């Protein structure tokens, strides 16, 4: 049984079709990369899976562990084990990193999770999640907090963007750690080297998954502009 299965998903936002009959399946303990051009709907797909406001499907079904979660609210999906590492995490004034790492859990050793994402606990645990943190620091903390939740499915929306080149390897290691801990990952990324750490990959274009295969196959297909949906017209930024 797939951990997550999306069947015939369609959604319109503001009169615009975002997904039209999208199909996607993620296996247990799988890192599944998702590629696509800017605006192809990668982040939107993560929001639909999580159940964000304004992202309710007009048609189709989302199954998690074989059960439809369409009717569940965001926090109920989170309590089932689905969570999201946001591309641009929110700033939360007055909430410390230590408190944030403990959200939804009891007595997490925040220091361990900060070290995992390359941050020194003594410098960060007592800081607040406000605008004094850089975008890259905030992002690493978000990744640490999502890992601390021990989710079953982690939706990672470009965890590598805004991260310095020297640290990309660390981020890749953390993504592997999700799998080692028994979780599956939907990894949204623009970097080919990140696609290659996945077990499988899918390409999103024109509101559909146009190809699912090995990371090498999908990366090659994406770069070749042989998309069958848009005929290469929308995938031209590869």
């Amino acid at each position, binding site marked *: 049984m797939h951990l997550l299965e999306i069947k015939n998903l369609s959604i319109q936002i503001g009169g615009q079709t975002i997904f039209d009959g999208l199909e996607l399946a993620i296996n247990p303990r799988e890192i599944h990369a998702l590629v696509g051009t800017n605006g192809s709907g990668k982040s939107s797909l993560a929001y639909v899976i*999580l159940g*964000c*406001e304004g992202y309710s499907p007009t048609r189709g079904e989302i199954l998690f562990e074989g059960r439809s979660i369409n009717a569940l*609210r*965001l*926090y109920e999906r*989170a*309590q089932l084990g689905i*969570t*999201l590492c*946001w591309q641009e*995490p*929110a*700033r*939360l*004034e*007055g*909430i410390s990193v230590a408190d944030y790492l403990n*959200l*939804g859990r009891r007595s997490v050793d925040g220091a361990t999770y900060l070290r995992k994402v390359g941050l020194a606990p003594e410098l960060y645990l007592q800081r*607040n999640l406000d605008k004094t943190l850089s975008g890259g620091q905030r992002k690493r903390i978000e990744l640490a*907090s999502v890992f601390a*939740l021990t989710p079953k499915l982690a939706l990672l929306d470009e965890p590598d963007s805004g991260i310095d080149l020297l640290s990309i390897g660390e981020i890749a290691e953390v993504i592997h750690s999700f799998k080692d801990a028994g979780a599956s990952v939907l990894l949204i990324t623009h970097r080919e080297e990140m696609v290659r750490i996945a077990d499988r990959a899918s390409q999103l274009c024109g509101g559909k998954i146009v190809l699912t295969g090995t990371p090498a196959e999908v990366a090659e297909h994406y770069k070749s502009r042989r998309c069958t949906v848009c005929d290469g017209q929308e995938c031209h930024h590869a």
Partner: protein
Amino acid sequence: MPELNEISQILRRMGTDSAVLTDSQVAHVVASGLDLLSQQEIPGVIIRSERKADVLATQITVKREAQIANPVHLCIGVLHDTGRQMIQVRLKSEQDSDAKVIAHCFFPRARNVEHAMDGVIEIESGARLLYSEGHYHGPFGGVTVLPKARVRIHPHGRYLSDFSLTSGRVGKLRIDYTVEVDAYAVAELTAKVFGHADDDIRIREEVVLSGENARSLIKTRVALEGHARAEVTGVTDGKAQGARGHVDCMEIVKDQALAQAIPIVRVSHPLAKVTHEAAIGSIDQKQLETLMAHGLTPEQAVEMVVAGLLR
């Protein structure tokens, strides 16, 4: 003395060890209404209090170069459901001194209470004063709080104030602070208020950066629910070369509450710079979804955002 006992209990509820009122190393003033209940000086801190007709006047002086390790506690309020308290506070931090004053203001049963505080604060050159004012209010909202202060910070002085009214009903609040900041001096004013029901909040804080390289920050955080109203005015006036000021106001509204922010920035010297930011609205959806993605219910997420804002 039963009133002192009750004030000690209130201090504990406010998170302060009531032993500060019996510790010989801690200076304090305790007054209920216009009655002075207790007062203690320590080396380096001179306190003079007297009742003049319908006013209780207190003068606190931190002596020159004194470094006061323990905060000075100012416990003032009205324990009864009806009453009026007018307090005159003269606070002086003499040259190169360093002290913290914590004001605990309590109105646990207020149904028809007025509390007016008229403060004159002087920070001499090189001195540092931290002034923290916390309020303990009851559930009835029958209190009018009128804190007024005129603050003068001399060259290289530092004044950091923190006003907090985040539990119980606010009632009617009128904050009116004016701070003049001299050369190389620093002023930081923070106010945090949580209004409920028909609470009525007006905050006016004005900073005049009159000296070269003077610095200031006015930071206001207000959360409102029910039919509460708030108007926050932050004024910063940059009058000297190198003066830098910032006004930062954030207000969260729920239900039918109404919030207004009026940042006023004035610059009358070409090399002064004053900036402001104001954000008013309902709680940011992304903040809520971020917390809910960690398993918090919508109610828990709202509570956490508001608590963080007012922390």
